[in-house]
């Protein structure tokens, strides 16, 4: 259900996505709070949905699900990692430097791996580094995320990585960063267009216009 929810949002069918997301939330409401899939899936899915919609809807439900899982006293390492990635993405969404710094230290275990098959660990660390204002560190993580996705053939994740990496380069604005950012956005647009990832296409197009202005 979590994967179906994300898939619908990735292709821009927000109405269908919302239907599945509501079913996820209903399953959570019917379960006792704890580090179960009923809590962990919304904890990570909602912030990922928000990156597609650009709206911080249901962020409070995601934060609450992640914190319920983490505070249960019997969360296993995988459950803790998933809940923390959810909190990390919420910290990025809110541009909360303190929360980002806290999750960055706790999420080193995600390096070199995907988390729940939904997001690359290096991309999470890149987003957190950007939020923390450490742009050089963010670039290093995005480079690793890009290499991972390219080697594995994970094209949707590569398209998102290129877009996030371009955001960091735009903000750093060192020599060559602008041209590199445009090239990354071009790559992201090519992949997202081919795969029908409409929300990402729109995100990339708006960024490209600004950079090319």
């Amino acid at each position, binding site marked *: 259900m979590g994967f179906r929810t994300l898939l619908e949002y990735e292709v821009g069918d927000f109405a269908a996505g919302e239907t599945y997301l509501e079913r996820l939330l209903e399953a959570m409401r019917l379960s006792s709070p704890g580090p179960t899939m009923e809590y962990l899936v919304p904890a990570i899915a909602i912030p990922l949905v928000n990156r597609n919609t650009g709206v911080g809807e249901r962020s409070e439900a995601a934060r609450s699900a992640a914190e319920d899982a983490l505070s249960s006293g019997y969360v296993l390492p995988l459950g803790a990692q998933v809940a923390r990635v959810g909190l990390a993405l919420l910290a990025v969404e809110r541009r909360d430097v303190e929360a980002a710094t806290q999750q960055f230290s706790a999420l080193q275990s995600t390096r070199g791996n995907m988390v729940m098959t939904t997001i690359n660990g290096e991309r999470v660390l890149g987003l957190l580094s950007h939020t923390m204002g450490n742009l050089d560190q963010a670039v290093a993580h995005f480079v690793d995320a890009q290499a991972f996705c390219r080697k*594995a053939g994970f094209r949707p994740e590569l398209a998102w990585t290129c877009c996030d990496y371009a955001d960091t380069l735009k903000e750093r604005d060192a020599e060559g960063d602008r041209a590199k950012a445009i090239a990354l956005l071009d790559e992201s647009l090519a992949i997202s267009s081919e795969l029908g990832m409409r929300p990402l296409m729109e995100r990339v197009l708006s960024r490209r216009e600004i950079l090319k202005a």
Partner: protein
Amino acid sequence: MQPDSHEAGRLLSEYARVLAIEEGNYEDAQSAFAQALVIARREQDATLEMRTLTHACYVDSWYLQWQEARSRTAQAIELADQASDLRAEAQVRSYAGLVRILSGDFEGAHYHTQAALSVAERLRDRTWLIFAL
């Protein structure tokens, strides 16, 4: 029951999984898995050995022990023909696919997931069909 009996091996295999997942005790679980494997090999019980390795890689996944999980899925899959336990085979092939996708091994993941799907179809088991799909 004798502590190193065949029956004890079957109990240890299940107990280790519960110890790790329900009690959060990874170390003692590993020791129980190791004892169960010794018994399974001594008794030449491929089904018990495969089930124990399958439980162990499930536990490894929850504890982020991806290398160990990868190695154990490979060992368990080697026993599949001898063990003739389709449920354990569907389970371990699904885990094998998942572990490989998390580490970026797309081809390996595809191979194991296809195999998991085929076993789950033979088994007509919805849980593992959904997992493989």
